[in-house]
């Protein structure tokens, strides 16, 4: 079975403890996965996790604002 690719983007650099916590969550869901971390200041705050380029968990401030904007419409 191929390893799944996960990109974790955050508005500020993650501490080691945070990285460990994220990896634990991902391991629990996906098992052994290829995880990379990157800095994305446009997210304004929080983080966004993209699995295999399509499945996405958006817990960023930008995502919440977009969700709010969509709900307002």
């Amino acid at each position, binding site marked *: 079975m191929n390893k799944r690719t996960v990109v974790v983007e*955050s*508005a*500020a650099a*993650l*501490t080691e403890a*945070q990285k460990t*916590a*994220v990896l634990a*969550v*991902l391991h*629990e*869901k996906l098992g052994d996965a290829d995880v990379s971390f990157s800095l994305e200041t446009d997210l*304004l*705050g*929080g*983080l966004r*996790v993209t699995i295999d380029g399509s499945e996405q*968990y958006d*817990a*960023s*401030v930008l995502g919440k*604002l977009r969700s*709010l*904007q969509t709900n*307002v*419409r």
Partner: protein
Amino acid sequence: MDIKLAQIIFQIINFGVVAVGLTYLLYKPVSKILDERAKKAEEAERAYAEAAKKQAELDELKANAKKDAEKESFKIVAEAKKDADAVKKQLLEDAKKEALSEKEKQMKAFKDEQNSMLTQMQKEFGQSVFAVAENVVGKLDKKQHEALIDQAIKDLKVAVSK
């Protein structure tokens, strides 16, 4: 009294001459005149009868013509009324259609304007929210960012467990 034969004969001859004279000079011309008058009266009567007949025919013709004209006029009036009703109906339908079309047009224009205003308001609201959020987040320190990320990790845990 003496009756003289010669005188009697003379009287008879005299009477005969007068009778013959009257016959030729009075009776025949008068008789001729009377015949002519009778003939003229008869002709006049015939002419009158013919004229009366012609008059009757003319009257009948006139009555028929009047009757036909009345019939034709009723027909024309009926057709004109029918045409007028059709035109009236058509005009009414056209007017209704036009009014409906105008109403729909106005409603569409109103809805378009409403949607446009709503979209514009949403856009402006979104921009305002983003501007405020950017302004607030731009002032966050490292600890606040860490707190936000911690919260995001918790949210991620919840999302993944579902």
